[in-house]
């Protein structure tokens, strides 16, 4: 082999050994191994300068551990050139400085033999330095990413906690609304019970419950039985109402096959009376009775929330001849339920934000700002559908789209 060739080939092998690894230890170990093997170095050591500690740490050592004490720390050595050779007795050290780090090779040869090696190292020094910098930059980037990941995890955990809190607040708000609806539903039957009781009391106080003759006795008995029957009927209605509300509050664990019109009817069973009292006309147009597989209670909760919002805004804006139009139809793969009111619509500048948490236009105590946020979460994340709102010439329209399964 030609001598010149050997130098070129050693350079080639060393440059190749730098490789593409972005792990400093891996890259350095591979380079040291090849260089040590090819040049007959007895041992080699790579010191990495750690700026945080303002000192050197050992990154990689190859060779007999017994030789390690011969290697002096770079910070106790005099500042030399980038590549330098020092002889101590039979030991000759080749020092290479790379980006503040230090690489040292131990030889049992004289300084003259190492002059050519210095030239060879010098020929690929900048490539090696670039590779070391790339490794360090990559390491820094990884650390930044890890910090970022940790921060994201923390924020996600915070958000989860916030969601829990929102859910809890939403439940409490809904409970308040429910109590209000129960009050509406119960006012009429309770009034009726009270009226029946009052008429019985009046008869008794006026001594009109006559038992003096068989005929009068029969009439009084018939009156009492009729009154009791009416009371029982009202009580039954109250019980039925309670069941409706209880079912509404119980979230579904499993999907149920149900039509959208049925869900609308269930909702109107709960809120219908309240709307009726506020003279809000409800019109339901059912173009499709196709059943879909969904979480019925949750969807009912969303419909209820939209109807309640419509009721509130109608009342707030004192709309004349208020009405709510509910339309059910199929559009390709979607089952669509739209709820439209004539309350004047949503101001365009707030329309994009109405589904965000804690966003409310309702005056103080009425709005939690969670109803539409929860509605969107239920329809889009839980039921895999879509919900959005738009303005019509006379009011607002909320559209809920659900797939068959």
């Amino acid at each position, binding site marked *: *082999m030609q001598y010149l060739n050997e130098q070129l080939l050693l350079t080639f092998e060393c440059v190749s050994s730098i490789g593409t690894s972005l792990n400093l230890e891996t890259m350095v170990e591979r380079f040291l191994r090849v260089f040590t093997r090819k040049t007959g170095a007895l041992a080699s050591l790579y010191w990495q300068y750690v700026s945080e500690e303002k000192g050197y740490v050992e990154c990689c050592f190859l060779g007999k551990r017994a030789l390690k004490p011969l290697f002096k720390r770079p910070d106790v050595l005099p500042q030399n050139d980038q590549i330098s050779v020092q002889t101590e007795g039979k030991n000759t050290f080749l020092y290479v400085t790379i980006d503040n780090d230090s690489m040292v090779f131990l030889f049992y040869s004289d300084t003259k033999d190492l002059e050519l090696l210095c030239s060879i190292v010098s020929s690929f020094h900048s490539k090696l330095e670039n590779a070391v910098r790339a490794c360090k930059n990559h390491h820094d980037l990884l650390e930044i990413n890890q910090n970022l990941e940790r921060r994201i995890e923390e924020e996600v955990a915070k958000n989860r906690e916030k969601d829990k809190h929102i859910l809890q607040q939403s439940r409490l708000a809904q409970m308040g609304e429910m109590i209000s609806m129960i009050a509406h539903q119960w006012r009429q039957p309770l009034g009726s019970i009270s009226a029946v009781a009052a008429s019985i009391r009046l008869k008794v106080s006026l001594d009109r419950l006559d038992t003096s003759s068989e005929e009068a006795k029969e009439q009084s008995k018939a009156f009492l039985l009729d009154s009791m029957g009416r009371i029982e009927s009202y009580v039954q209605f109250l019980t039925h109402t309670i069941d409706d509300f209880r079912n509404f509050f119980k979230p579904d664990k499993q999907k149920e096959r149900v039509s959208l019109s049925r869900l609308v009817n269930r909702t109107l069973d709960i809120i219908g009376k309240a709307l009726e009292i506020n003279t809000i006309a409800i019109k339901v147009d059912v173009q499709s009775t196709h059943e879909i597989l969904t979480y019925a209670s949750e969807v009912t909760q969303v419909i209820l929330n939209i109807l309640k919002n419509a009721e509130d805004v109608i009342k707030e804006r004192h709309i004349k001849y208020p009405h709510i139009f509910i339309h059910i139809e199929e559009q390709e793969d979607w089952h669509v339920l739209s709820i439209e009111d004539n309350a004047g619509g949503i101001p365009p500048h707030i329309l994009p934000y109405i589904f965000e948490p804690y966003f409310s236009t309702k005056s103080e105590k009425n709005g939690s700002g969670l109803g539409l946020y929860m509605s969107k979460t239920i329809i889009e994340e839980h039921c895999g559908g879509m919900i959005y709102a738009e303005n019509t010439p006379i009011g607002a329209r909320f559209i809920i789209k659900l797939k068959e399964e």
Partner: protein
Amino acid sequence: MFEEISFCESAEKLHTSLTKGRYLLLVANKTDIASLASLNDDISFVGAVFPRVIYQNQTFETGIIIAKMSDSTLSCIVPMDNTTQLKLPEETNAVLTFIDGYSIHTDRFLEILYAQLPEQARILGGGSGTMSLDPSSYLIFDNTQRYTNYAIVIASKQNVGLGIKHGWTTVMGPFIATHCSGHTLEKINFQDAYSVYRSIVENISDIAFDQTPFFTIAQRFPLGVVRYNKDFIIREPFSTNGQTLTLNAQIDANSVISILEGKADAIIEAAREAAVASLHVKAQAPSSVLLIDCISRYLLLEERYGEELDAITSVYDSTVPLWGVLSLGEIANANQEGIEFYNNTCVIGSL
């Protein structure tokens, strides 16, 4: 390191010849060692199987070399993939190791073993194995069991002289081993390694690849890994799939290689030079000479192999016994450089 070296034709005869003590047994491939299990409890041994063993000026395919260890010599068998239990005494001056020649952990094991050596300590040894090249063979053994993927490590305070030579010369090169994976050389100069190797060997010799076993060709024309200002390290391909070459040791990607040729006279002379070198680094006269010689050299030299043994023994006093093995890979650190796993090389230790 060793008090006494002897040779025995069969394992049965050991029952009468061995006395209480610790032994290293180097066993030739065709020896039945089943009866070793019934040796007396006060006889402790570690052993390894090789294609042939060497005693005096002969090689044997049947028989056992018996080396009785001195009291101060430490011996153990360690797994090559887990060296945590390997601890060498600080006063160690020489380590003799026989590894599982088929192990894929050779390089890493030798690096860790070497790192533990004291500054002036030397190491020599070889790869055990059989000519059947059966990687499932249990090549290392002791009183209790046989092992695969283990190594024998013998450490001693004794200073040893060491000589390492091969005698192969470059016939073509340099080339670049552009793609390598472990022991497989996939591409030379970006082309299928086998095609390149074949075309070169056909160019420089009259060998017909279709009529000659590949193993035989590779013995004559191994590869040499080039080092700066140093002798190359031989890597012998032992099989091919028609595209890649499988070597009996690892090769790094982008290594510079040459194709070598072995000529009998040069190989024999190299063995003699190794013997001379082993004396240069040994202060006192050796009590025995340990030869770790590659089986490929034996197969290449054929009937002239005896000349290599004669060349080696001619360097020493005639009373110094020569013993050793024909191995699958040789281990040594020359001139205190890093440890290497050689092929086709003659390693001689003056003990």
